[in-house]
């Protein structure tokens, strides 16, 4: 929609508006902002968003991380990404609901050193990347452990709704995402979004 100029409309065209909007729609800034984005130009084992409390703690209520990723493993088409908060290697537990194209199952991953946040591909055709969306609610609330909900999938393989909890109430100051045993491939994209 063309923006109407209040000055031009009133002075030059002698049109009177009772509102300073001069007939324009009120502008509402979005409550969803891209805070950081990393697109890998070289393979890397871990991508970390850091200094979150000081940078965003007073402005954002929730985080979402959207990604489209693969790793450098050449043997397995189905891989697991690991997420850690605040460089802490204790107190995680992962649960999942998964479909493989013919059946549905649910299970847990009791490993406590990381949250298993997403599935993605390793050995599939090199132009294929796998998407995930991770919702992290109230990351700065020190009354809560942090619960993460992630939807991810691998083309031609599995789709999974995962959750994991980080059993610590400290505010989330850094989020690290690590490829299991290898590196994230060039072109993998990680986007941190803040919701007000």
């Amino acid at each position, binding site marked *: *929609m063309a923006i109407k100029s209040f000055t031009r409309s009133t002075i030059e065209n002698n049109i009177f508006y009772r509102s300073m909007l001069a007939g324009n729609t009120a502008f*509402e800034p*979005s*409550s*969803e902002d891209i805070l950081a984005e990393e697109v890998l130009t070289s393979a890397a084992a871990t991508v970390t968003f850091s200094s979150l409390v000081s940078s965003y703690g007073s402005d954002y*209520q*929730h985080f979402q991380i959207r990604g489209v990723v693969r790793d450098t493993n050449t043997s397995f088409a189905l891989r697991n990404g690991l997420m850690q908060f605040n460089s802490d290697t204790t*107190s995680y*537990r992962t*649960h*999942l*609901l*998964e479909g493989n194209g013919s059946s*549905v*199952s*649910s*299970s*847990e991953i*009791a490993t406590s050193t990381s949250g298993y946040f997403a599935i993605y591909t390793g050995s599939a055709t090199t132009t294929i990347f796998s998407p995930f969306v991770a*919702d992290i*609610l*109230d990351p700065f*609330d020190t*009354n*809560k*452990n942090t*619960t*993460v*909900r992630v*939807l991810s999938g691998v083309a031609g393989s599995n789709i999974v*709704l*995962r*959750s*994991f*909890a980080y*059993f610590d*109430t400290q505010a989330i100051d850094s989020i690290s995402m690590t490829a299991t045993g290898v590196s994230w491939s060039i072109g993998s994209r990680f986007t941190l979004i803040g*919701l*007000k």
Partner: protein
Amino acid sequence: MSMTLIEHIEVTAASVASVEFDLIPDTYTDLMLVASIRSTYAVTTSNVLLSLNGTGSVTRRALLGSGSSASSTTSGGGSGYSGVVSGANSTSNTFGNMTYYFPNYAGSNQKSISTDSVSENNATEAYQAIHALLWSESSVIDTITLTDMSANIGQYSSFTLYGITAGSDGTTTVS
């Protein structure tokens, strides 16, 4: 597309019977509600009931995982079951995580709603759930009420309602 914060609610009391958003403007394209909930119900995982405009006539079809088995379920009769949350017997300070999406909430058709929700717990049992909901009314949704299935909504539970506005940039082709 743009997202606008409509209201954020955090439970500061020890518990509340329900949380309600009312007088919701009808000026957005869709609504999205994210919630971090712990129930006072003495179970590992509880359920959240959804009521719209003061009626409970929300039915569901759900896909559920318990941490050890998967199932699908339905409930009619307006039960309002809409997602899973951590209960009072789950690990302390642990909350569920869920998103409701209300497409075309101000339209004149019956309202279809989707939710993804999880409870968490430091044990084998914790639920993941995908719900397809139907509210068989053609009214504009102007009130959203959430309650626990058998008890209250616990302290520090939070609820954030956003309005989603469709964009007009780019090119869309319909053929």
